[in-house]
């Protein structure tokens, strides 16, 4: 068979374009057999090929044993392949690693520097605590190896050992320190040590303070920029502990800032100066002032528009670090930072956003959010245009929603991830500190409405959503909806507006989307709550109920469905439960129809596999059936007899949902609820639950619903996407020709036309009673000249002769009463805007600050978050972080507990030394045992000598026989008589043989005494 080399494999791959998969499978098959071959060359080649394929994503964990085999090869070039294989393919669960310990020890002690390097370089990838423990002793001597390259690699490997086994550092640190202090040490070794110390430094800066003089020396005359960068970073962590360092550092750093031609060093200097608190207050104020302005002006120069994008990025990074310690310095740069939000480079944008998020106040929130909204709007309309183009090309008339072409979204102007991120930040900025920065809630509601339209469709819930972090899977549109709900619940003044916004969104959802498609937007869940809970504030409850009924069958996610189902009876109760209206025949029939429809819609859900849905559906169906019965039994009122509507309809059902108002509850409140004394949650519900359940299972009848259950639990719903906007919106992209008002500059640029129009109408409505407000002339009906005319005309109708009314009799208060339906919607809006009451989350004692309300602009209350807003979202995410290790993350937290300074306690807690001591003791003990054994043996032999033959009779006889035989053979040809004679002679000579043997034995014992050979030899003689 002709084997492929790596070269052949790669060429083959290049020649099999199109059917690589098959080719690779064949190669893998070949490798599998080749790697088992006894021929080391073949094995190593196969391994090299596997490593190459692993790089391309083909698992080779199955080959770990063979990796070990190649690692133990005698030839360097094969060994190297083996080590590479181990580095690339060993995972934490690779179990053959235990077998490698001796091999690693051996290679570490090799006489060839190149061979020593292999395990040193590989160890950081492989190391486990137990491996670290057993190899530490072999690694430490390598710190003083004659080759600088081995020294520096060993330093780093020891650091990585310490990450999993901190005690290693205690043993290694004195030696590493020695290397660092040695002025004649190879500079690259020193640099490597500085790198390691820098990594250690931020964990335990106090341990490295004693090194400061030496480090300072290196900084001043090191002449190595790479090292200088690390030293500055290290000093930035040291200066907070030792303020005297500041004065010492300031001159060389200032000097570097002024003279260095290397931009990276300059940047790190500035960064270090600011981060190390060197700008902090203290004596020598003028010098510091000078440095501060120097640094900030340099950073500002980096951020400003025309600079190198890399510098822009790193300057923003620096600002991001500075902002926690020196917010004022950063706030001064707001103008240039805000410019970066509109940068073309997404990396820069994101960094700028990180910064801006910490800088929002009630003054700049509006302008920042406007910037972001404009970006999103532009991106979404560009996306829509793209899809339109696609639509036109396809010439498909089946639906105009343009939701096709998932692939198109990849080339969208802004990636979905970024859009989601920005939306999340907008929500976060606005909801910060319980909406402390939002002044105009009407504006916020409009922004939210617009965001629901912009929000990208949720990604189909993918495989890892349940295995990994759950907060990740929170759908962004659901978060927007949550915000709207929070506003509705917490800000009573704008509740009507929020409810109407929810109403609008729901009606858009039901009318705009194609009825056959499932609704996937998560916003529906909180919105359904809002319209249900505050049904009395809806402008048209009947329409909303109808819309909800239309939407419910199309909802995919059971959690959303459950909330929607709950809101339907609430709406129904409001629509049907008017106890003052007459029970007319019309009402009776229309309500019967409505109930029949609701029941019809709900019925399929009675068998829903998700229990929450099923339960609610069953409850409401039963309730409505009862009510329908009652309604049909109640005769309608006629002209003669007044009949009341059935009480079930007017009293019972509404009473289910009214009563106490629901307030928002703080996330932690549940924990503060005391557990009732008699409650034991660990107590089983039924002592024999298991058997009950199994009984129930066996009793279960085969049902038709099986398939549905199967589908629900085992099959993934097909990924769907939704675009929630009317087609017309995407066709018409003409800029709105409306003059913008001064207070809301440029709002039209990011809000959809219809939202803007509604907003204008509302403003007009709100201000219609305000004689100081001059309405938009273009929209007023005729050429009346004054606002008062306008008001009069509106209120009294066009046919009224305004001149006939004396101006004196104008009563503004009456006017506001005259529109009762509107009155409800716009009660004292101006007043509300002055002092909007935002209710805080309710909680139970302990967590403090339970006064109930806060006003915008008032003192920010940290820790106050609404139930589901983005802050708490972030918090829960960070709270989880310590537990959940990030991908690729190093975990150096163990080092935090290790102190390097207390070296005067040699005895306790030092496993490595202890282990060495134990080993020494063990060796001593072994020697003792051996000595004793030898003594015993000798004593035994002495006895044997004294007793003579009997004790060894058997052996001797054997020997004798042998001897006779040989003798016989030798004397062949002689007569039998001689034979007999010989025998006799031998009888006497037996003694001699035995003594001979004894001598031999004695010699052997002597040998044993010299060296401590294996016991087998000593015992074997017996």
């Amino acid at each position, binding site marked *: 068979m002709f084997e492929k080399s790596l070269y052949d494999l790669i060429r083959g791959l290049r020649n099999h374009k199109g059917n690589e998969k098959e080719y690779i499978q064949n190669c893998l098959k070949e490798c599998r057999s080749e790697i088992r071959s006894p021929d080391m060359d073949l094995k190593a080649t196969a391994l090299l090929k596997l490593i190459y394929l692993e790089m391309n994503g083909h*698992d080779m964990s199955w080959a770990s044993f063979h990796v070990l085999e190649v690692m133990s090869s005698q030839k360097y070039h094969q060994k190297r392949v083996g080590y590479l294989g181990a580095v690339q393919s060993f995972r934490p669960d690779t179990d053959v690693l235990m077998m490698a310990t001796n091999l690693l020890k051996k290679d570490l002690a090799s006489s060839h520097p*190149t061979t020593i390097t292999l395990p040193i370089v590989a160890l950081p990838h492989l190391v486990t605590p137990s491996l670290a423990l057993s190899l530490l002793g072999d690694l430490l001597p390598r710190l003083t190896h004659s080759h600088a390259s081995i020294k520096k690699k060993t330093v780093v*490997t020891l650091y990585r050992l310490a990450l999993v086994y901190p005690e290693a550092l205690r043993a290694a640190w004195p030696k590493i320190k020695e290397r660092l202090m040695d002025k004649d040490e190879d500079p690259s070794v020193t640099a490597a040590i500085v*790198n390691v110390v820098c990594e250690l430094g931020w964990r335990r800066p106090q341990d490295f303070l004693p090194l400061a003089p030496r480090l300072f020396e290196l900084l001043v005359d090191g002449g*190595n920029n790479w090292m200088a960068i690390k030293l500055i970073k290290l000093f930035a962590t040291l200066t907070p502990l030792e303020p005297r360092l500041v004065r010492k550092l300031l001159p060389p750093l200032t000097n570097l800032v002024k003279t260095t031609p290397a931009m990276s060093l300059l940047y790190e200097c500035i960064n270090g100066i600011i981060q190390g608190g060197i700008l902090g207050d203290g004596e020598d104020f003028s010098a510091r002032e000078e440095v501060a302005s120097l640094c900030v002006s340099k950073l500002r120069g980096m951020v400003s528009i025309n600079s190198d994008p*890399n510098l822009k990025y790193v300057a923003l990074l620096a600002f991001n670090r500075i902002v926690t310690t020196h917010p004022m310095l950063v706030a001064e740069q707001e103008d240039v930072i805000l410019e970066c939000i509109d940068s073309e*480079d997404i990396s820069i944008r*994101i960094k700028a956003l990180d910064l801006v998020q910490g800088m929002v106040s009630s003054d700049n929130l509006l302008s920042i959010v406007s910037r972001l909204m404009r970006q999103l709007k532009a991106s979404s309309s560009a996306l829509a245009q793209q899809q339109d183009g696609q639509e036109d090309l396809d010439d498909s008339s089946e639906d105009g929603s343009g939701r096709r072409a998932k692939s198109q979204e990849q080339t969208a102007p802004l990636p979905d991830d970024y859009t989601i991120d920005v939306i999340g930040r907008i929500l976060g900025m606005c909801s910060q500190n319980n909406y402390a920065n939002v002044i105009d809630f009407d504006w916020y509601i409009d922004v939210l409405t617009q965001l629901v339209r912009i929000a990208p469709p949720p990604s189909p819930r993918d495989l890892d959503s349940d295995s990994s972090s759950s907060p990740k899977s929170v759908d962004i549109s659901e978060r927007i909806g949550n915000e709207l709900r929070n506003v509705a619940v917490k800000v009573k003044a704008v509740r009507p507006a929020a409810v109407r916004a929810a109403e609008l969104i729901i009606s858009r959802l039901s009318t705009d989307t194609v009825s056959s498609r499932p609704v996937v937007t998560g916003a529906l869940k909180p919105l359904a709550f809002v319209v249900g809970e505050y049904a009395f504030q809806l402008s048209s409850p009947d329409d909303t109920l109808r819309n909800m009924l239309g939407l419910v069958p199309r909802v995919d996610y059971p959690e959303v469905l459950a909330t929607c189902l709950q809101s339907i009876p609430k709406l129904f109760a409001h629509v049907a439960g008017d106890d003052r209206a007459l029970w007319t025949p019309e009402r009776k029939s229309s309500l019967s129809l409505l109930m029949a429809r609701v029941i019809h819609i709900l019925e399929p859900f009675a068998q829903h596999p998700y229990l929450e849905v099923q339960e609610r559906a069953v409850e409401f169906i039963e309730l409505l059936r009862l009510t329908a019965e009652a309604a049909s039994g109640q005769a309608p009122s006629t002209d003669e007899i007044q009949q009341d509507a059935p009480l079930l309809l007017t009293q019972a059902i509404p009473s289910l949902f009214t009563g106490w108002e629901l307030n928002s509850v703080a996330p932690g409140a549940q924990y503060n609820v005391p557990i009732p004394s008699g409650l034991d949650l660990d107590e089983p519900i039924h002592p024999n639950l298991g058997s009950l359940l199994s009984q129930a299972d066996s009793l279960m009848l085969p049902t038709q619903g099986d398939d549905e259950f199967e589908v629900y639990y085992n099959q993934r719903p097909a990924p769907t996407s939704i675009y929630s906007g009317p087609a017309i919106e995407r066709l018409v992209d003409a800029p709105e020709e409306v003059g913008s008002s001064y207070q809301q500059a440029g709002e039209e640029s990011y809000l959809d036309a219809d939202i803007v129009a509604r907003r204008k109408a509302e403003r007009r409505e709100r201000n219609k009673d305000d004689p100081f407000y001059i309405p938009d002339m273009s929209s007023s009906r005729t050429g009346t000249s004054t606002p008062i005319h306008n008001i009069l005309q509106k209120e009294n109708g066009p046919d009224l002769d305004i001149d006939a009314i004396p101006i004196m009799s104008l009563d503004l208060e009456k006017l506001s009463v005259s529109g009762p339906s509107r009155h409800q919607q716009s009660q004292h809006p101006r007043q509300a805007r002055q002092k909007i009451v935002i209710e805080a989350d309710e909680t139970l004692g302990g967590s403090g600050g339970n006064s109930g309300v806060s006003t915008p602009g008032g003192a920010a209350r940290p820790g106050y978050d609404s139930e589901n807003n983005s802050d708490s979202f972030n918090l829960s995410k960070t709270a989880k972080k310590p537990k959940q290790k990030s991908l*690729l993350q190093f975990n150096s937290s163990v080092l935090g507990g290790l102190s390097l300074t207390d070296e005067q306690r040699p005895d306790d807690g030092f496993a490595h030394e202890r282990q060495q001591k134990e080993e020494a003791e063990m060796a001593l003990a072994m020697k003792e045992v051996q000595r004793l054994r030898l003594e015993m043996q000798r004593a035994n032999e002495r006895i044997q000598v004294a007793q003579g033959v009997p004790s060894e009779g058997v052996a001797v006889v054997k020997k004798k026989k042998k001897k006779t035989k040989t003798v016989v053979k030798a004397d062949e040809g002689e007569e039998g008589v001689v034979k007999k004679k010989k025998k006799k002679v031998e009888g006497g000579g037996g003694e001699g043989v035995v003594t001979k043997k004894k001598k031999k034995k004695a010699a052997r014992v002597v040998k044993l005494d010299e060296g401590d050979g294996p016991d087998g030899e000593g015992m074997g003689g017996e």
Partner: protein
Amino acid sequence: MINAFLVFNGQGQPRLTKFYTQLETSIQQRLISEIFTLVSNRAPGSCNFLPLPPLLAASGTSSSSSSATEQNDVPSLVTYRHYATLYFIVISTSTESPLALIDLIQVYVEALDRLFENVCELDLIFNFETLHATLGEMIVGGVVIETNMERIVAGVRAQGAVAKRPVNEGSRGGGGAGLGAMAAAGFQGMGGNFVWHGR
């Protein structure tokens, strides 16, 4: 610290993968493809830093992260450079200097150029062991140990001869655009901002 060093070409095919923490092969591939999508959508003239790929962003740094010290362990920076047909990526924590990482990639490419004499993608494809060896002379366990070109090259050569690309593969199409020329031009191309003096 440096969490990973990756090289892949314009089609997203990996040429070198080195992760300094152990990671499942499938997750490695996902990370590579996520970074590739990010990197291939960069506008010309953008900076050399990528936003965190979703895989890292999800589990790693959220903007309002807990303590600054905790963050030092989490990968927070993705630096890349584009040479001819190849992308070089470094994923690192915040303890590394971003601008220095850009230079680190440059040093790596220059070292390869020195070793292969006018290096191109084909050299790297057929000699990926040398790629690993060169990287091993510069970074061990996620810590930079050497930035001096002479020493790096000498270190690699000490391990054995560096093979040239096979002669009959010399069409030099596709990958043959001459990474080395790019590397040489790199210093000037970056506007001289990153020239290391006294290296």
